[in-house]
């Protein structure tokens, strides 16, 4: 212990210049939080150059933290039984001690809301404020995915609208009817996002205005003569029926919820609105699913740097620093694959290691780094490099760009190929000269949501026949859909669509049709046509 203390004293050499510790002891109060916040903000803005939304820090109890869990962390959310189910499970696990609570929850909104728990020590509050209110907050505000896809200013208002709207629907149409639509929508939630930016559709009022203008134009330029002009000989349009139909319905469409909302023949207005709400929520969370490693890496790196700086300046006592490091190392712990505790690659561990690695490469590169990262190595200004990475990448591209051989060696990553046709799995690449690129490529793929999720599109509707909806799964690496869950989801889809639904699994390389699921609606949602 004395060694540690003296080490602390050495580290705190600048303490005389830096000043007093911000707080002593474990208890927290508002004054301390305020002092600490100001100190953190100074470091964050001046040393790290972070750019954040205004912060709103909310103190809650563990009970409320459990509540927040159940509605995916949002401060307000519509009611649905699945949230109750998650709450029940989380509560059971928490009460039986199988799982602790998160230290914080942070919401991508403006102002950025972070929850801190009253049970935590002052040091934990410090860590959490640095982590959530500055790390995550900066990432939310600056990453291109969040900027493109989420509306931090409007989200809370929208959720409040959604909650009220759904409550009203429940009142008017009954719990059961609303629940069935929501169940179906939730099943398709992952297929309710636009993956690529679309042309901004004008709002309804504009739409109406444009329709009127078109009509007026047609009336103005009406000339009966055109009717008498003979048509093209042969008359057959170069487009086939199928092509015209698909163009009319804007197919193929991968956003299934969007398609249903706009085109499903039998849904009522409120049901379409429910689909829209679920779709919007899915879209709001879509960036988060693509940036787990970066987001956590950014936040973890920020809290580490900020607390380290505070400690160097003597604003954090040695005891507090040790406590913070204890939590920090727990968070960034990565068990090996053969460890009982292994549960996949820890996004905190990988993210934090990569951020530190970028810092190292920028300021203190080796010959290998110079070869691998000619632009980055030795350029200085590590914070600038990090901020650039945080703003312009998502997990997949970030790993592909920045995972260095040094880190692959450190994690001892290896790539296993598992082909069901072979009796055994094969180690395809390890952390050696020949393997770096393969490992990096494979790891990046693992974080690419487009690879992780099945590629399913609506390709056609049998308009002349029985109005069957036809979907296609473009099979990747011969991995078919899970039979049971696909059936259940298609049932929901058929109920929403109101007619039969057919999903065909196709190998895009050979065009081979591998499997076909057909489901007829059981209890049609919406009114008869």
């Amino acid at each position, binding site marked *: 212990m004395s060694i540690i203390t003296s080490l602390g004293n050495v580290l705190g050499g600048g303490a005389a210049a830096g000043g007093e510790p911000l707080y002593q002891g474990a208890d927290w109060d508002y004054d301390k939080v305020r002092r600490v916040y100001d100190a953190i903000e100074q470091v964050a803005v001046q040393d790290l150059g972070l750019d954040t939304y205004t912060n709103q820090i909310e103190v*809650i*109890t563990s009970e409320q933290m459990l509540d927040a869990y159940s509605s995916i962390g949002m401060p307000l959310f519509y009611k649905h*039984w699945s949230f*109750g*189910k998650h709450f029940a499970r989380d509560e059971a696990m928490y009460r039986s001690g199988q799982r602790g609570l998160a230290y914080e929850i942070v919401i991508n909104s403006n102002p950025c809301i972070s929850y801190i728990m009253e049970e935590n020590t002052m040091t934990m509050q410090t860590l959490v404020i640095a982590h959530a209110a500055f790390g995550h907050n900066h990432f939310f505000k600056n990453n291109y995915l969040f900027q493109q896809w989420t509306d931090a200013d409007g989200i809370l208002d929208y959720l409040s609208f959604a909650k009220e709207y759904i409550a009203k629907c429940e009142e008017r149409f009954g719990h059961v009817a609303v629940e069935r639509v929501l169940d179906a929508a939730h099943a398709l939630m992952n297929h309710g996002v636009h993956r690529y930016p679309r042309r901004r559709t004008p709002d309804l009022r504009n739409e109406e205005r444009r329709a009127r203008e078109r009509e007026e134009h047609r009336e103005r330029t009406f000339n009966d003569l055109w009717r008498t002009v003979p048509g093209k000989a042969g008359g057959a349009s170069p487009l086939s029926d199928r092509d015209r139909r698909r163009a009319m319905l804007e197919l193929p469409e991968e956003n299934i919820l969007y398609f249903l909302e706009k085109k499903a023949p039998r849904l009522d207005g409120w049901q379409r609105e429910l689909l829209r709400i679920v779709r919007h929520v899915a879209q709001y969370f879509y960036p988060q699913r693509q940036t787990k490693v970066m987001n956590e890496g950014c936040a973890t790196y920020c809290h580490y740097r900020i607390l380290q700086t505070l400690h160097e300046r003597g604003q954090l006592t040695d005891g507090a620093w040790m406590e913070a490091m204890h939590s920090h190392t727990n968070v960034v712990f990565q068990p090996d694959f053969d460890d009982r505790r292994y549960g996949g690659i820890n996004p905190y561990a990988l993210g934090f290691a990569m951020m530190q690695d970028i810092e190292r490469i920028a300021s203190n590169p080796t010959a290998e780094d110079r070869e691998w990262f000619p632009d980055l190595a030795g350029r200085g200004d590590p914070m600038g490099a990090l901020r650039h990475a945080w703003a312009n990448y998502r997990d997949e591209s970030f790993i592909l760009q920045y995972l260095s051989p040094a880190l692959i060696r450190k994690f001892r990553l290896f*790539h296993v*190929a598992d082909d069901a046709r072979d009796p*055994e799995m094969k180690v395809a690449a390890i952390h050696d000269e020949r393997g770096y690129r393969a490992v990096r490529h494979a790891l990046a793929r693992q974080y690419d949501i487009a690879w992780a999720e099945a590629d399913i599109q609506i390709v056609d509707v049998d308009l002349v026949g029985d109005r069957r909806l036809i979907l296609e799964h473009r099979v990747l690496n011969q*991995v*078919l859909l899970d039979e049971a869950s696909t059936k259940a989801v298609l049932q929901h889809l058929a109920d929403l669509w109101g007619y039969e639904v057919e999903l065909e699994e196709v190998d895009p390389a050979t065009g081979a049709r591998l499997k076909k699921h057909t489901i007829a609606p059981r209890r049609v949602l919406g009114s008869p046509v």
Partner: protein
Amino acid sequence: MFTIVDRRLNPSGKSLANRQRFLRRAKEQVMRAVRDASAKRGIKDIDMGGDISISPDGIKEPTLQRSSSGGARNYVVPGNKEFMSGDKIKRPPQGGGGGQGNEGADDGDGQDEFRFVLSREEFIDLFLEDLELPDLAKRKLAVTDSLDWHRAGYSVSGSPTNLNLVRTMRNSLARRIALNRPTGDEIKALRVEIDDLERTGRDRVRLEEAREELALLLRRTQRIPYIDPVDVRYNRFDATPRPAAQAVMFCLMDVSGSMTEHMKDLAKRFYMLLYLFLTRRYKHVEVVFIRHTHKAQEVDEETFFYSPETGGTVVSTALEEMQRVVEARFPPSEWNIYAAQASDGDNALSDNGKTAQLMKEIILPICQYYAYIEVGQDGMSPGLAYGGGVRETDLWRTYKSIAEPVLAMRRVTQRREIYPVFRELFAKDGVAQQAEAGA
């Protein structure tokens, strides 16, 4: 710039609505689980919440997922210690590969059972759902003496203790303004002026005027009282007859030598259920324990269940004791009376007539419900005759001859039958069918 908000005082339980929706959704499974759980429980803990596990079938949230087997997959895993590229590894037994991590294990798939905790209230509600107390004709006619007083507006007469000051003063103020009663300030100002004029001695005319004015004001003050009887208002209370919201439960048990521990245990379980049920329906439930051999006495719970006693069996003594207790402490007009009798069916032959008469004429008319539980040896139907057919016991035959809807009879031989029998007795429309269902 930042704000810090203390949300700790916000009401918790924000997800209560979600929880209710969830319970409603999984109701069937939860009910089944509750029944199973309650069978395993000790009697004392029957009204506690607890862990429940249900199968995840009805509460799955399916998503379109790729299957966890087949095809070509790639994993990148940390912690390589011995592998070189090109090495072959055996497939781990259950899908998932070298470490697919959390993928796919999210919902439904990996877990066999869904475990969660039910609160005490939820547990009991589910436990006693769709049970109902038999609503019998007698209580409707009953006139209750006890009255409930509650506020019912205001009245112009009443006792001083019920004076409503606010109303009274409001009326008084309105009247004083309307009749233009001089205020204290006006009079005081005039007095000061008169004082002033008297002391200085100038302006005699004004002094006279002022004196007159003052006299007028004083006269008005006297004529228009500060509080007039017409202002006064009293809180009015209305009396409504209070429905008898209290119940007494009589536990009658034969404790003669023929009753084994097992039989007593069965009886106890039945009493517990009945007690639990009554406490859900009535604010106030009293329990009276009467044990009998050839003589009966009222005892406390401990003695009732555990103290040994020997002697013959004369059921009518217990009924007489019950009649005595009712007369002494529980007037039927104020109390809902429930009785549960447990016995192995023995009775002194000579007593059967008296028992039947007592039941018919005295006990059943004052009871809301009288449940007779005939307990038997474990695994053996009570009163199994030599020929293998069921021989009806003395008491059974006696009660059967009474055949009143208030009287319900059941046979129980095993612990697990208790709850079904209880449900049968109190099922929502079960009252009518009970009389003949005994055999």
